[in-house]
């Protein structure tokens, strides 16, 4: 069976029609991983035995005619999502040997569908970065050009899907970590509304911004995974009780009359010409299908980067304090408790993680709190307000996903400011807690994918998916040649 860019719904048919067994399917993917992933390093851990065990279990469900949409479907899971008994490293030396004793809620939900775990996908250390080059174990390469980054932080998940080393994967998105790598790797990824998926079991980076979501070959497959993983969870007080619809429901409906807003600040000179042109062309295509394009403005965008980094790092500094070498993770040396902690953290954390912890503590420390952290919270309220005003007059917003296509490995090394400002297109969506999807809208001359983002109203993933899907119907993606 040709697995190149195979869709979940096609695999579903093949499994249900017994054209292939769950074990065979998972075996094919494992074989591809074994052959190809040496070049890409998209996985940190490949769970071969568990995968085959999961597949056998899934087959029984299929054989008894009780298969669910994800029964027997192999998936990769970002390595910051806890799976009972499976090493969860967050791509950090700090958690090199950490084996969680419990499952994240999204994993429980996938288990209930009978999914098959292929392995844990690489990422930036503790999801802090946009290149997957801060991973302590697998600095993933872009399948379209292995000298380039796959984006990040869910770079392993995106690269694995792009290279057909998994039909789909789970990622997490704090400031663009699903959408930006999806765009760099030419696949589709959605960050759901904040509160749509449970964060229980997702190793926290920034709790008020983090959200788990799927990366897949198209919007339709993303919708299928969302159907499985969304919903209120009693273990996560920030998960919403808003009713979960069938996310595939509006797929295929015409976008005629859909109002698409283009905020002018997202099309400034800070965005590559190629990227801008490609996204605007996609907008024209949607217009051709009957959508109504409008221009709008988001003045708060100019403060978005500091607002995002102050909030995210403040929360991260606190979230990452628990890594002290005592309860789990890397244990350094020291005669006293104080010495032991400092040594464990010095050796366990990478440089970018340390910088963000320092920044977070700076923003929260006495004397700076009002000027930085509190100001960032004020900005958050302003950005929410501006989005609300835009959505008063439109259904979705269309922006580039990243200012550039995938850049060369090493291009942003030792330049945190450059790294941070590259997140400009994605962070406001997290700040406002909105759903946002990135799908491929074109390729550069060199064949690098360009992504566009469709942003929707809170809990309106359906319209976001509908819009992305409408574009995908007329767009021919090009799989990478490895």
């Amino acid at each position, binding site marked *: 069976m040709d697995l190149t860019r195979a869709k979940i719904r096609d695999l579903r048919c093949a499994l249900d029609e017994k054209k292939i067994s769950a074990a065979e399917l998972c075996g094919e993917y494992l074989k591809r991983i074994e052959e190809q992933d040496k070049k890409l390093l998209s996985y940190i851990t490949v769970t071969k035995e568990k995968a085959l065990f999961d597949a056998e279990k899934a087959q029984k469900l299929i054989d008894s005619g009780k298969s669910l949409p994800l029964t027997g479907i192999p998936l990769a899971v970002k390595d910051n999502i806890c799976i009972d008994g499976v090493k969860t490293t967050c791509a950090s030396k700090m958690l090199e*040997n*950490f*084996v969680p*004793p419990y499952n994240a809620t999204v994993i429980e939900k996938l288990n209930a569908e009978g999914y098959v775990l292929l392995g844990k996908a690489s990422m930036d250390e503790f999801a802090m970065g946009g290149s997957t080059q801060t991973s302590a174990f697998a600095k993933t390469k872009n399948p379209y050009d292995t000298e380039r980054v796959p984006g990040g932080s869910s770079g392993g998940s995106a690269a694995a899907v792009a290279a057909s080393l998994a039909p789909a994967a789970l990622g997490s998105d704090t400031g663009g970590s699903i959408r930006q790598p999806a765009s760099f790797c030419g696949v589709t990824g959605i960050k759901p509304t904040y509160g749509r998926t449970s964060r229980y079991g997702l190793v926290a980076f920034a709790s008020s911004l983090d959200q788990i979501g799927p990366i897949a070959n198209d919007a339709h497959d993303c919708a299928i995974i969302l159907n499985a993983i969304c919903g209120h969870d*009693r273990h996560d*007080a*920030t998960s919403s*009780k808003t009713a979960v619809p069938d996310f595939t429901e509006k797929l295929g409906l015409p976008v005629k009359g859909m109002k698409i807003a283009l905020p002018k600040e997202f099309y400034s000179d800070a965005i590559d010409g190629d990227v801008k042109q490609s996204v605007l062309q996609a907008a024209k295509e949607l217009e051709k299908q009957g959508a109504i394009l409008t221009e709008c403005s988001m003045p708060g965008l*100019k*403060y978005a*980067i*500091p*607002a995002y*980094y*102050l909030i995210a790092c403040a929360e991260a*500094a606190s979230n990452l*304090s628990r890594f*002290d070498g*005592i*309860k*789990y*993770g890397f*244990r350094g040396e*020291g*005669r*006293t*408790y*104080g*010495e*032991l*902690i*400092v040594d464990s*953290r*010095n050796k366990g*954390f990478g440089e970018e993680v*340390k*910088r963000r*912890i*320092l*920044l977070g*503590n*700076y*923003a929260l*420390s006495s004397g700076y709190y009002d*000027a*930085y952290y*509190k*100001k*960032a*919270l*004020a*900005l958050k*309220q*302003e950005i*929410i307000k501006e989005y609300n005003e835009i959505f008063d007059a439109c259904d979705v917003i269309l922006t580039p996903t990243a200012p550039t296509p995938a850049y060369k490995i090493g291009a942003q090394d*030792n330049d*945190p*400011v450059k790294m*941070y*400002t590259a997140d400009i297109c994605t962070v406001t969506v997290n700040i406002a807690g909105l759903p946002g999807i990135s799908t491929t809208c074109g390729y550069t001359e060199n064949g690098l994918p360009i992504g566009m983002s469709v942003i929707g109203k809170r809990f309106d993933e359906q319209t976001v998916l509908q819009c992305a899907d409408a574009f995908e119907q007329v767009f021919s993606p090009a799989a990478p040649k490895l």
Partner: protein
Amino acid sequence: MAVDMKTIEHLCGLSKLSYDEKGMEKVMGEMGDIIDLMDEIKDFDLEYDDTKDGNEIRFSDTRQDVAEGSFAPEKLLANAENTDGCYVVPKVVE
């Protein structure tokens, strides 16, 4: 720029991190640049009102007080240096 050695040392204390002399030099430069970027927010002059976040829940949405089973200690301690069912810490002086 605006970040001196003393500030970085204070932040290291709060963060439980430390740098050698060379590392300190480097991180001071990087943090200076980062804080310059963050300083852009100072131009924004609206106040934060914590009652207007709109993320509050109702009292009735909180968890009912029901005790459920705990975890086996050995399962919780599996990732830790432990003895007598406890986590081992270098001696703490009070």
